[in-house]
């Protein structure tokens, strides 16, 4: 199957970039762009050809037989959507880093390495393999931030790497435990998902693995790596971080933690502070994340921090959607993964590439007087569109996703759904405020005459923005496109345990 | 109940240790109790027939002294190993099950000693006066 080539082509592209002769920046960019376009084409083909509901086995080979580890790549509807997202973000990220001049080849090599590993995670159906790719992601991520980053980059990069390593350590403990308890010498997802783990085991393995993954998904209170990491990262890296890497965490929560240990979501049998299960706990944390992220975003001075905290708020929606445990909520969570991937990518692109690379400041108070809506109108328009989409205006993907999650949450946790309302209102407010301060400063403020004038928005930036907006609008207008593949996937045997155990 | 019986073999050793410690303790304790204690400055001075110490006790020696001393010890100890071998030589064929095993083993051993000897000889360590700079 072609899908496996998304991984190989990305890795080969990274290798080729390193071997290119020095000093051919344009060649390097074009090669990277070509690589991502090819991988995107592959995922798109697979997505279009996907016979709904079927599990697409890509390749299955024995790898380390004595431990029962296989090289098993496959994709169902959920994986396909995330693969598609990765393809889109990868292209957009390269378009938005067209202006990178320093160590171009290395930059794109790390970039492609990261993309390849992300594809790998979404395609892995053997948990060992999944973990392998999951760990590989950390290294290029670290380098991208630490070499090409800006504000406190080494700190941000190291914090991100350590959080990731600790998270994956927790995941590994859970996975090993599952592997041992199942005792079948198999790390295959299906085998482990089918195995009826004892209840008390699931009760502690579930939170362990879930939190391990949720650290990367930016779950409150383990989110602190995210704002610093995003701010420190170069534009393309923050796009990838918010766009796909955080999705890795959410994907892991759904694919591994919830699939393997569905009973861990069940009631404890007693109540602490009104919380009766891990499900309640994580739902509460998700809601706190939504509200907290939005409120903190409201008071940030740094433009990028606004977007960084908004990511935490939006990731909270995904986690809340997962915890609703009804079809609507789960499907909404997957759509939100896609939607937030695209929109966060776009927002970071506007802030990092369009604004910061030109104005060389991200301070909202300084940006205001620059009168950016006149200087770079395209950026202003893009930000308005992206902002609207992200606050959930109908017609964009964010609306569909958040609506589904809200309805799902309303059925499961009515009280939380009300609290989420606060988050949504705050969400409108912080986007509005950032928009106002950065682009449409109050009249009466003397517009600073720019010397020299800001360079106009380049073609690659326009293309990237159009691609991302297009993806969001397409999903917003015709969500059925995604739901058609998500719903059958949720009904696949893989989620049997979840459906039988605690599905509502 | 083999093992306790086996440990009984060590009883004489234990008695020896007890006797030694006991005797030493007894003598020290006895001198402490019987003797009279009168501390004076004279007691701390150098002993009557001794000499008053002069200079530093840590003199410097040529490193060659140490080399020769070390080599002497090495070859001496090596020679000592031959003694037990010589004593039980006649019994070796019976215990090893091979007639010449003990013989060849000692030959190998002597061979190694000779290699060592050859090495220090060629390295000039036995030549006292020859300057071999970096010892």
């Amino acid at each position, binding site marked *: 199957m072609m899908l496996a080539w998304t991984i190989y082509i990305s890795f080969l592209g990274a290798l080729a970039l390193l071997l290119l002769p020095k000093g051919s920046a344009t060649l390097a960019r074009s090669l990277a762009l070509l690589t991502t376009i090819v991988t995107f084409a592959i995922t798109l083909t697979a997505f279009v050809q996907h016979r709904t509901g079927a599990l697409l086995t890509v390749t299955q080979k024995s790898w*380390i*037989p*004595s*431990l029962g580890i296989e090289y098993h790549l496959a994709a169902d509807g959920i994986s396909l959507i995330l693969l598609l997202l990765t393809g889109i973000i990868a292209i957009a990220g390269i378009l938005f880093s067209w202006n990178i001049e320093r160590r171009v080849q290395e930059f794109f090599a790390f970039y492609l390495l990261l993309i390849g590993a992300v594809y790998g995670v979404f395609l892995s159906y053997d948990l*060992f393999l999944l*973990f*392998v*790719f999951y*760990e*590989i992601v*950390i*290294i290029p991520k*670290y*380098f991208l931030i*630490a*070499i090409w980053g800006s504000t406190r980059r*080494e700190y941000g*990069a*190291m914090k991100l*790497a*350590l959080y990731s*390593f*600790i998270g*994956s*350590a*927790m995941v*590994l*403990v859970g996975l*090993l*435990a599952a*592997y*041992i308890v199942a005792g079948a010498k198999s790390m295959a997802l299906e085998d482990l998902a089918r195995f009826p783990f004892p209840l008390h085991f699931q009760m502690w393995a579930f939170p362990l693995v879930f939190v391990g993954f949720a650290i990367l998904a930016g779950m409150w209170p383990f989110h602190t790596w995210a704002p610093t990491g995003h701010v420190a990262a170069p534009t393309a890296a923050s796009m990838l971080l918010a766009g796909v890497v955080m999705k890795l965490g959410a994907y892991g929560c759904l694919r591994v933690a919830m699939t393997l240990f569905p009973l861990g979501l069940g009631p404890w049998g007693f109540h602490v502070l009104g919380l009766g299960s891990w499900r309640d706990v994580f739902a509460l944390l998700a809601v706190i994340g939504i509200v907290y992220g939005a409120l903190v975003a409201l008071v940030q001075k740094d433009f990028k921090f606004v977007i960084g905290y908004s990511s935490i708020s939006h990731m909270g929606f995904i986690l809340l959607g997962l915890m609703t445990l009804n079809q609507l909520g789960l499907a909404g969570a997957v759509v939100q993964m896609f939607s937030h991937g695209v929109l966060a990518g776009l927002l970071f692109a506007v802030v990092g590439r369009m604004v910061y690379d030109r104005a060389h400041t991200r301070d909202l108070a300084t940006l205001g007087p620059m009168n950016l809506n006149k200087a770079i109108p395209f950026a202003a328009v893009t930000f308005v569109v992206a902002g609207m989409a992200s606050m959930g205006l109908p017609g964009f993907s964010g609306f569909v996703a958040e609506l589904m999650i809200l309805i799902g949450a309303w059925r499961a946790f009515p009280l939380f759904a009300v609290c989420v309302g606060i988050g949504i209102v705050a969400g409108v407010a912080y986007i509005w405020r950032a928009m106002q301060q950065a682009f449409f400063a109050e009249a009466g403020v003397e517009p600073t005459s720019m010397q020299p004038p800001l360079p106009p928005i380049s073609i690659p930036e326009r293309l990237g923005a159009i691609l991302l907006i297009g993806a969001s609008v397409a999903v917003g207008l015709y969500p059925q496109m995604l739901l058609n593949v998500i719903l059958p996937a949720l009904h696949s045997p893989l989620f049997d345990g979840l459906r039988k155990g605690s599905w509502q | 109940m083999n*093992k*306790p019986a*086996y*440990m009984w073999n*060590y009883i004489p050793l234990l008695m020896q240790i007890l006797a030694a410690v006991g005797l030493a303790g007894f003598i020290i304790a006895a001198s402490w109790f019987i003797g009279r204690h009168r501390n004076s400055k004279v007691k701390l001075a150098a002993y009557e027939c001794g000499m008053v110490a002069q200079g530093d006790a840590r003199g410097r020696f040529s490193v060659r002294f140490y080399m020769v001393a070390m080599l002497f010890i090495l070859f001496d100890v090596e020679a000592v190993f031959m003694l037990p071998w010589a004593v039980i030589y006649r019994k070796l064929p019976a215990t*090893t099950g091979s007639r010449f095993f003990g013989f060849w083993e000692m030959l190998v051993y002597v061979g*190694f000693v000779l*290699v060592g000897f*050859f*090495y220090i000889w*060629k*390295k000039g360590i036995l030549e006292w006066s020859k300057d071999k*700079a*970096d010892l």
Partner: protein
Amino acid sequence: MTAVSPALRILPEILLTLTGVLVMVTEPLLSAKTSRKPLGIFALLGTLAAIAASAWQLHLPAGTAFFNTIQTDAFSVFFHLLIGGILLVTLLVSLNYFEGHSTYVGEFYALLLFSAVGMMLMTSAIELLMVFLGLEISSISTYILAGYRKRSAVSAEASIKYFLLGSFATAFFLYGVALCFGATGSTNIHSIATGVASGSSPLLLALALGMMLIGLGFKVSAAPFHVWTPDVYEGAPAPVVGFMSTAPKAAAFAVLLRITYTGFGTMSHIWIPLLWIMAVASMTIGNLGALTQRNVKRMLAYSSIAHAGYLLVAFTAFSADGLAAACFYTAAYAAMNVGAFAIISYLSGYDERRVHLQDYAGLAKRHPLASAAMAIFLLSLIGIPFTAGFFGKFYVFTTAMHSGLWILVTIGLLNSGLAAFYYLRFLSQLYMQPYDAAQDISEAPAQPAFVLGIAILVAAVLVLGIIPNRVLRLAQAGAATYFPCSGTNAAEVHTQPNLLR
């Protein structure tokens, strides 16, 4: 069975000894001006022959020789091959290191060979006195090797410290052997096992076991017997550190395995908690200590303490898989650690010009290939997938989990997450800092032998990480000599002779 001549059972040792003796005899015959490289190449050939001989021993039926002092089996062969491999690579990367700096270049090769002989003897010995002999042969050689940079005070300090503390440790070991003899009336591991199983004089045996654990714990630099490690690794010449941080550890681990698993197998309730504590202490102290180090050799020294801890985790599992994991991890650790020190030895040269973290700033620009190799070794030390370190750790923790050591595994994994910090800091020095051209130090161009050595190590790290199967089966075959009846491993024993084809 009796057809196998005893000499064949120690054939690798014999070959290495003869090579070493010949090197030692030839050395003084050469004039002072002559290059000692031919001696090094001769030592290399001898090592290759010894490795071949070890591999050939796989075809021998497992059995004992020299009055039950030596036992060759898949387990001993695994460690022979490992030690031989370490020796080979060390010779390759140090072929030019001392040339022109020391008047004792020839002896360097001889000492390395003798030291390897001692270690090999340790791994195949089933008689504690034999173990002791091997320990002494290897230790005395490494004491000298540690002080090989004679004109440097830190090197002399390293040698003295290593010697004094090492002698104490060996004394402890010997005392343990004596107590063991007192309790069981034998120093043969199999007889000890019978004595231990009979359950007499448990107190004496526990004491003996503790003493031996102290002695061997020192050799593997496991906490709380690790204090010598940073000082010694800092002072000793870098190629020697690569050798002495891996090969003696491998040998000591082999002995530890034989003593605990075979000799004291029925007293596991005593040594498992002890090893548990040592494992936790080593991992934690090693990683915490490395966090604050600015000297790369000291940092790697602490990291080696931490890795000894991971290895002890595998021991604590006390199962066939645990044993295989310990063997595998030893090999993985050897590949990456020898590599890291080899690169340091190349970049900093004989006079140790680059020992601080900031000396490595931006070196990736100046030495892209050496830095790339270093990056691979460091990533492997962190435990990034597709490297030996990742699979080794994965296997170790899996087996520990299998034996129900949840807490230990959790502590270990958190530790390995923490460890990423200081390895990444080193990596970021290499790749992210601007290169200071003013501090340019012209290195001698890398010799073919060095490049070959590094290539072997990089290949080993990657092969062990990507297709670990073959080495894994060899390790499991070794483990099967201890747990002959355990499920899948029993099948592996029959395929033993084909393992290397």
